[in-house]
């Protein structure tokens, strides 16, 4: 299927997930176990996305300019910088590392 197809399916799934919450009886979802799974899924996926975007190049692991972005972003977050600043710092760090000869 084309990328457009998957985009529209992702949109339909998102709308259905939200609407389902409004339809099902609260006791189905409102238990500590369900909350925990929803929360740990969010954390696990974001952690996985962070490291794949930082270290994966196709199916190989590489250390390149993106590591500078990861470190710089962590420092910015630790200094309580707002999200947009963190993103800009990440871009700057990767750009700078490439300028200095990193792959």
């Amino acid at each position, binding site marked *: 299927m084309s990328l457009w197809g998957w985009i529209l399916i992702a949109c339909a799934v998102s709308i259905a997930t939200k609407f389902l919450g409004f339809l099902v009886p609260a006791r189905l979802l409102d238990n500590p176990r369900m909350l925990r799974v929803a929360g740990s899924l*969010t954390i696990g996926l974001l952690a996985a*996305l962070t490291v794949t975007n930082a270290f994966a190049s196709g*199916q190989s692991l590489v250390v390149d300019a993106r590591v500078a972005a990861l470190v710089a972003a962590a420092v910015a977050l630790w200094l309580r910088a707002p999200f947009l600043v963190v993103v800009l710092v990440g871009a700057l760090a990767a750009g700078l590392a490439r300028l200095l000869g990193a792959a």
Partner: protein
Amino acid sequence: MLLLRSPAVRVGLSVALATGLYGLSFGALSVAAGLDVLQTMALSLLLFSGGSQFAFIGVVAGGGSGISAMSAAALLGIRNGVYGMQLNVLLRPSRRRKLVMAHLTTDESAATASGQRDPDEQRRGFWAAGIGVFVLWNLFTLVGAVVGNAMGDPARWGLDGAAVAAFLGLLWPRIQAREPAAIAVVCAVVTLIAVPFVPSGVPILIAAVVAAVLGLSGFGPPTEGLEPDVEPYPPGAPRGGS
């Protein structure tokens, strides 16, 4: 003008502005990942859930398949179902309103509503944050996508570094306690181990399975990971209606 005197509406609008700015980076990163402006806008208008949208383009940017991207977005969106259920109990909407409210359900609108005590304020907070975030998120996505499109080669501008920073920025507020940080580390390690052995995008889904198992086994407090990206009620700030 009367509405602006409501503390919940003011909180909702300031959350909307801060969240809208996330849209700038989403738009730029989405076109850098290879989506066109129209595809980017379809995600912001229809999928309308920041984390899931970032997940979708994050998988695509890494060369993952469409089905992996869709699955990552769907799994990251499960918490929206939980918010929908909570908002349904909290706001008791009429049947007709449910579909619109469901679409406006995000981390931010749910958190703005549930941070209020008075039922009317809860309702106003939800609509202010929901409509405000929807309008500004889409507006800023469009700006980000158009600007990103004009920038050309993503690597030259460090946009791949920006994506790394964006994901860490989304993760950060959710790993302030020890248990969620442990979940993040375990999932990160599992992902890296899996990268050489399975197609792009799949390591993220393997990490999701591990995270779900960790969650099911009762690791950590029940609401960890459900924090909004923009906290409507930062510690120390006055809390309206309480």
